[in-house]
């Protein structure tokens, strides 16, 4: 649940999603759900020469199960807050 909430705080920020087929897509995060499915707007592909497959695409829905990495700007993450929340959740889970 924590990671889901974390991704929700990234809404409307530009992120890069790397898929498990090596395709990297950059776009504005529009929404995320409990499966960590991601909806991106105004997308661009990292290497359009190699991957012209997305030329006519404006926005896309990425299934959470195919996401390898999500890259975001360091300033969009409050690491201390996230650490605290992670510890708190781990503690709750132990109870």
């Amino acid at each position, binding site marked *: 649940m924590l990671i889901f909430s974390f991704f929700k705080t990234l809404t409307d920020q530009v992120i890069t999603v790397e*898929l*498990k*087929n*090596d*395709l990297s897509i950059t776009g504005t995060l*529009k*929404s*995320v*759900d409990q*499966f960590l*499915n*991601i*909806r991106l707007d105004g*997308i661009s592909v990292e290497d359009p020469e*190699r*991957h*012209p*497959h*997305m*030329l*006519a*695409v*404006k*926005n*896309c*829905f*990425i*299934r959470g199960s*195919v996401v390898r990495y999500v890259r975001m700007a360091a300033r969009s993450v409050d690491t201390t807050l996230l650490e605290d929340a992670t510890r708190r959740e781990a503690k709750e889970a132990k109870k």
Partner: protein
Amino acid sequence: MASIESYVDHLVQVILYDGRIIVGKLKGYDPRTNLILADCVEREYSLDQGVEMIPLGLYMIKGDNVALVAELDEEKDSTIDYTEIKAEPLGEIHH
């Protein structure tokens, strides 16, 4: 669900786990990303010839196979000469 509600009745490009690309009109979906696509065409990319368009008809795609659903900009799509595009086919999803 990071919704694809707005894609219904629009032309979408679906990327499958095995790297195949299917373009069709989205007629329905559910929370497991099971999809119903009308008038599907498979777009087969290859390095030695342009994109091959293979008509498939009506397809129901099980969500387990879906990696990505993208909305196609129909106007932009119609300006692209796919017979001239040569590219490596997308790889399959490997975990």
